[in-house]
Structure formats: C-alpha cells, structure tokens
C-alpha cells in the first residue's frame, strides 16, 4: 500500500493548512475595524488606557484572558499587576466588561470580523443581559 | 485489502444499509444531545452514569476476550484456532471502537476531549483507561491486519508481529482490570467497592466475548463459504463454560459477603436490583431474567450432550451473552448508584434518544465488524479458490 505519490503531496497540503495562521499573519496589520470605546466607564477615565498597551491587547488579549483565568481559578491569585505596576482585579465580568460594558459593539464586532466565537459567553455575561 | 469490503452480495449490502440507517438515526439523536445536553437522557444527579458507560463497561469485556483465542493459539500452539483467532482480534477492534465512542457520547463537553492529553493526570484511572484502550485498539488493528496480509500472500507474518501478539495478552487483561478499577476504587459506593471486581469483570468478559464470537462464527459459516470448523467452535464453547461457571461463582461470593456480614451498605444495591429497595424495583424483572438466562446457559453448557450439539450450544451462547449484557451492561453500573449517598432512591431508565444513540454506536461497531470480517472472508475465499485451481 506504499503510495508516495499521494502521501507526500498530502503531507504538504497538511503542512500548509496547519501553518496557515502563521504565514497569513506575517506583516499584516490587524484589520481596520473600529471597536467602540465609548462607554460611560471609559469616558470617565482620565487616561484612556486598557489593562495593557493597546497593541498588546489587540494581539494578545485571548492569551491574557487565559492567564487571568488560570491565575484566578487555579492559583487563587486574583489581582493582576500590569506592566506599569497598576493593579486590576482579575475578572472578565467585573473588570473587562466594566469598562467594555458595550460587549456587542466591542468584543463582538471584532470577533464577527475575525470569525471567532469565544465560548466564554456561555457562562460569562455582560451586566445588561443579567435579567434572566 | 479494504477494497474487498466494497463488493458483496445483495444480502451483504442490505445489512450494511440497515446498519447505516441505524447509525444515521443515532447520529441525529446525538446532534440533539450535543445541542440540548445530556438532559435528554435518563441520567440524573443521582444516577450520573447510565446506559452509555454501562455499554462501555460491557464492551471492554468483549474486547478483552480476544485473548481467549490468542493464548491457546500462540502460547499453546493450539492450531485449530488458526482460522478464528483473527475473528477474535477484529471483534476486539470493533468492541474497543465502540468503547471509545460510548465514552465520547457520554461526555458533557466532548469538544474538550483533548484535555485528557493536554493535562495528563496519572492519579486518575480514567486517564489510564484512555491510554490502555487506545493502545489495545492499535495493537489489534496492527496484529490483525499484518497477519491477514501475510496470509493473503501465503507467507508467515513479519517477525515484529510476534512480540506485539505477546504484548497484547497482558494488555487485554489490563484493559479490563483498569476498567474495573474505575469502579472498585471509589470509597462511597459499596456495590463497587470490592476487591473481586476486576476478577469478576474478567470472568464475565471471558464468557460473554467468546459467546458472541461463537454466535458470529456460526453466522459466518451459515452465510459465507468460510467454515471456521467444528472443533474450534467446540473449544470456544468449553471456554465459555468455564468462564461462565467462574463468573457465577464470583457473583455468589459477593452475595455471601454482603448478606452474611449483614452490613446494610453492602446489601442495598443487591436488594435494589433483585428484590426492590424501599418500594423501588424497576430493574428487578430484568435482573431476574439475567439470572434465569444464566441458569439456562449453565445447564446447556455443563451437560456435554447439549454443549456438543451446535443447536443447543448457540442457545447457550445467546443466553450467556444476554445474561451478562443485562448484568454488566445495565445492573452493575446503575445498581452502584442506587441507593444514592443519602440512601434515597432515584431510579433510572434510558430515554428514547439515549437508546437510539446507544443503538447507533452498536451499529457502528457492527459495521466495523462486518467490514473487517468481510475482508477476512474474501481473502480466505480467494485463497481457497487459488488452492482449488492448483
């Protein structure tokens, strides 16, 4: 059943597929979508800053959230000290969504664009949908 | 060789289509379960494992039983098994596949199945079970395929196959031992907390697996040109006999310990299963059916006259299979949850969707079995034709 003629191109295609996110992302700026930053909480801020610099948040917020999650739930460390030494309570709902209370106009617009559907919202939720 | 499964008689295709329809129905129901959750099954907070896990437990036994052919053939050079040993190995392949599927359909979050590998946890028996089951599946596919390939070419199997076969023997014991440990190590469940659990599992496995094999071998003889031969079937019959006697003996040991010691926790599940507990007794008729079938099978098996007669031997094999299916594929798992840790009772009965999913998984198993056996038989038939031409 040895059939190199099929196996090798098969492997190459497989390789191309698994590395797809890598080479499609090289040098490409994240798309020009405008997640809405106008929420009462952010308006109130003196310095309009996220928990980390904007570029980092854009690229790495999913990883940061995973770290937050493991730190809070698994290690019991529920305070995050950011790169500037500022403290944040680790909470998706009480911290991220307090500032970004407009989840649908913020997280969601990006995710719809990027075609990701974080399953977090099966459990975590924004305040305004807390009715029932 | 797989292409041999693509040509067959009308009967063959009808059977395949029936299986595919059952798989389809099961799959549609699984999609519903995937969306709505395991709430569509009969399981509950109190009986948190049901039909799926009990089928899994039963089928691990069927899978392990392949060694009952491998040991005589490879260790004791019992040549008469040469034709059917591969049937045992492929039965193991189909059974282990069903086991894995039953675990899968039982998961609340199937998308996260890789967590078992991403966060390996050696203190969990389930982790080991996943390892040994996959290993056993791999071993039997490789061994079965390699020996069949060799047979087709008329050469002895490659030298690396032998060590794998020897490994597969303790491995088969391990899959059922580890599966018994899933239950036998839980502190609060008296029914399962018994040192004899693994031994009982093996005894029932070595009865139910060969019984199924015997039935299938006779079907193969009836519907194909391939005849496994009378003597191997008689030998399998003897294996079933001894294993079934041992199994019943082990069961009686459990009864003795529970009732002579008179410790309530040890008696409760037995009472629930065989007599009813505090007015609940949904499984009582089924469990008695299991006992009656076991008695019938023993009478037919122990009596040499009825064991040697293939007609009565099949009846005995069917009785063994269904008796043990009820005992292990139903009573053992459900019984362990009743009464619950508060000594109150929530009963369990599978729902319709749950039953369809279960049938669907069995149908996948039979499909795999059919295809693998078809390949074996086609190879055998073509060798037979070649020999006839010479």
């Amino acid at each position, binding site marked *: 059943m040895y059939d190199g003629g099929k196996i090798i191109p098969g492997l190459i295609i497989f390789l191309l597929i698994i590395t797809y996110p890598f080479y499609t992302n090289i040098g490409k700026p994240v798309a020009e979508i405008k997640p809405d930053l106008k929420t009462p909480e952010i308006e109130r801020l003196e310095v309009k800053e996220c928990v980390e610099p904007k570029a980092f948040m854009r690229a790495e917020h999913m990883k940061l959230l995973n*770290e937050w999650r493991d730190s809070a739930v698994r290690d*019991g460390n529920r305070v995050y000290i950011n*790169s500037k030494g500022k403290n944040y309570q680790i909470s998706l709902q009480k911290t991220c969504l307090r500032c970004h209370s407009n989840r649908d106009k913020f997280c969601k617009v990006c995710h719809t664009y990027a075609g990701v559907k974080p399953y977090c919202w099966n*459990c975590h939720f924004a305040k305004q949908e807390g009715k029932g | 060789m797989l292409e041999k499964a693509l040509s067959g008689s009308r009967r063959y295709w009808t059977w395949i289509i029936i299986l595919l329809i059952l798989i389809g129905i099961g799959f549609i129901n699984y999609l519903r379960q995937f969306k709505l959750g395991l*709430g569509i099954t009969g399981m509950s907070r109190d009986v948190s494992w049901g039909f799926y896990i009990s089928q899994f437990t039963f089928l691990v036994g069927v899978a392990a039983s392949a060694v009952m052919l491998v040991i005589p053939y490879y260790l004791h050079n019992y040549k008469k098994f040469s034709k059917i040993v591969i049937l045992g190995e492929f039965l193991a392949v189909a059974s282990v596949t069903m086991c894995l599927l039953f675990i899968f359909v039982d998961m609340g979050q199937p998308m996260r199945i890789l967590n078992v590998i991403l966060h390996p946890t050696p203190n969990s028996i389930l982790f080991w079970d996943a390892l040994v089951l996959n290993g056993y599946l791999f071993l039997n596919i490789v061994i079965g395929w390699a020996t069949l390939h060799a047979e087709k070419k008329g050469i002895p199997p490659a030298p690396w196959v032998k060590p794998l076969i020897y490994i597969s023997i303790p491995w088969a014991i391990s899959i059922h031992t580890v599966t018994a440990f899933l239950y036998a190590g*839980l502190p609060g469940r008296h029914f399962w907390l018994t040192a004899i659990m693994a031994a009982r599992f093996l005894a029932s496995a070595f009865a139910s697996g060969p019984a199924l094999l015997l039935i299938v071998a006779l079907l193969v003889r009836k519907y194909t040109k391939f005849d496994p031969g009378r003597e191997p079937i008689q030998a399998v019959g003897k294996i079933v006999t001894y294993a079934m006697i041992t199994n019943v003996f082990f069961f009686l040991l459990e009864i003795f310990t529970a009732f002579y010691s008179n410790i309530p926790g040890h008696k409760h599940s037995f009472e629930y299963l065989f007599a009813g507990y505090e007015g609940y007794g949904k499984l009582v008729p089924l469990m008695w059916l299991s006992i009656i079938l076991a008695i019938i099978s023993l009478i037919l098996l122990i009596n040499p006259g009825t064991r040697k007669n293939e007609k009565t031997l099949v009846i005995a094999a069917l009785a063994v299979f269904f008796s043990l299916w009820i005992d292990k594929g139903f009573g053992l798992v459900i019984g362990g*949850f009743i009464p619950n840790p508060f000594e109150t009772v929530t009963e369990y009965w599978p729902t319709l969707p749950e039953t369809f999913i279960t049938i669907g998984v069995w149908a996948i198993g039979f499909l795999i079995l059919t295809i693998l056996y078809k390949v074996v038989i086609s190879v055998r038939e073509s060798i037979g034709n070649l020999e006839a031409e010479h």
Partner: protein
Amino acid sequence: MSLDRREFLKLTGLFGLGIGVSGVNLLLRSRVDAREFVTPSGSLIAKRWAMVVDIRKFRTAEDYKRVIDACHSIHNVPDFGNKKDEVKWIWTEEFEHAFPGQQNRYLPEWVIEKPFLLLCNHCDHPPCVRVCPTKATFKRKDGIVMQDPHRCIGCRFCMAACPYGSRSFNWRDPRPFIKKRNPEYPTRQIGVVEKCTFCAERLAQGLEPACVEKSNGAIIFGDLADPNSEVRRVLSNHYTIRRKPELGTQPSVFYIIGGEENA
C-alpha cells in the same frame, strides 16, 4: 503494513517542523514584561479552611432558606424544579440521610426531624480530585477543593467518586432557570460539573462565604491550622461529628448537634 520506517521518520520530522513553526510564532508575538499575578491584599487567607455548622442555631425554615438562597443567588445556581436535573451547592437533608448508618430509631425526635445543612466537605483526601482525568477539580493549598469549569470535560467521574453527593452536573442549559442573574459571577453551561467552592471569589475580596455571612453566627468559618481561630475554639468546646468519617476523606465541615437546649 502501510507505515514503514521511512514514513515513520518522515512523520516525526513533520511533527518536529510543526513544533518549530509554533515556536517561531511565539517569538514573533509582542511581549509585555513585568507582569505579575498576586493575591489581593485584604483577602482572607488560611492554611486550612474549615467550617462548623452549629445546627442548634438553625431554628426555623427561614434560617435555612436565608443561607441557601444567599449562596444560590450569588452563584447563579439554577432552580430546575425537578430532582433529575437538580443543581445545588448547599441544601438540607434529614439526619438519617445526611449521616446514613449513624441513625438509630431511639434518637431524640428533634434530631430525627431536624434538617442538616449539607455542602461540599472540602476533604483533606478528596476522592473527586483523585479521579478527575484533567485536574479540572483540584485541591488548593488552603484546602479548598476547587472546580475549574473551563477545563471540565463532563465525564462525571467525580460525581461517582464523591461519597457525599456534593456535585451537580449541568444536564441542561441552566440559564433559563436562573431567576435573577448576579452579574458579578458567571453562570455555567451545559455539560460541566459544579459545586460549592467555599466562596473562593469572596475570600479574595476579604469576605466570608455567603452562607456564613447570612447565618447569624450559626456557621463558623476559619483556619483549622490556627490554634487560636474561632473554628478551633468551637471545635475544642463542643462535640462535633462529620459525615462518613470511616471513608478516610477527612471532611472539613463539622456539625454541632447539641444538647437539651433543643429539646
């Protein structure tokens, strides 16, 4: 056999390449240093959390309800209204069901009839943790047996292992069955197991567990490892019992049953 040695080597090479690619991928990503995860100052800390339920002080149905509702409303625990799908973190059970095997029919009537508050025992040797295949349930250094719903695969091995019936599974979508959602805490989803966490999220904010707070002193919470803690004082002054001590799990929830004052 279709996989010979050459192909095997090729496959391994491919794996190596894959790992290399992801490594480069990681390096190219932006990095922010000097970040830290710490325990909040002012959070309640212990070597070994434990709880004493003084059942004498639960007198009316309202006393139980207040405590249970506090827990269930804060943690978005759904109420399905049926026993099959039931999810509960803290609940009541009569003596003979809470302490099976320890009942006898000559017990004072009030003991036989009194509801006992049950919850996860946060055992020293938790069988649920022992069996979990993904470490989704695990024991923290302070003794709390946590449940990580992010990692749970819903195999329910822990439910079979728990001798106390403390674990619930989300058989159905819980959200429609939560009367009023608390936006400070997540809900759960289909297919994961949940249970009491000794209010790990409240301890981090310096608050006692919700049931303790609402119990008017009937539940005492504290550090078992600290000889001067209130739990230790209470334990040394009262005869207490635990559920199924013979199993060796070493529960950290104790019960004061009490004496005449209840008669």
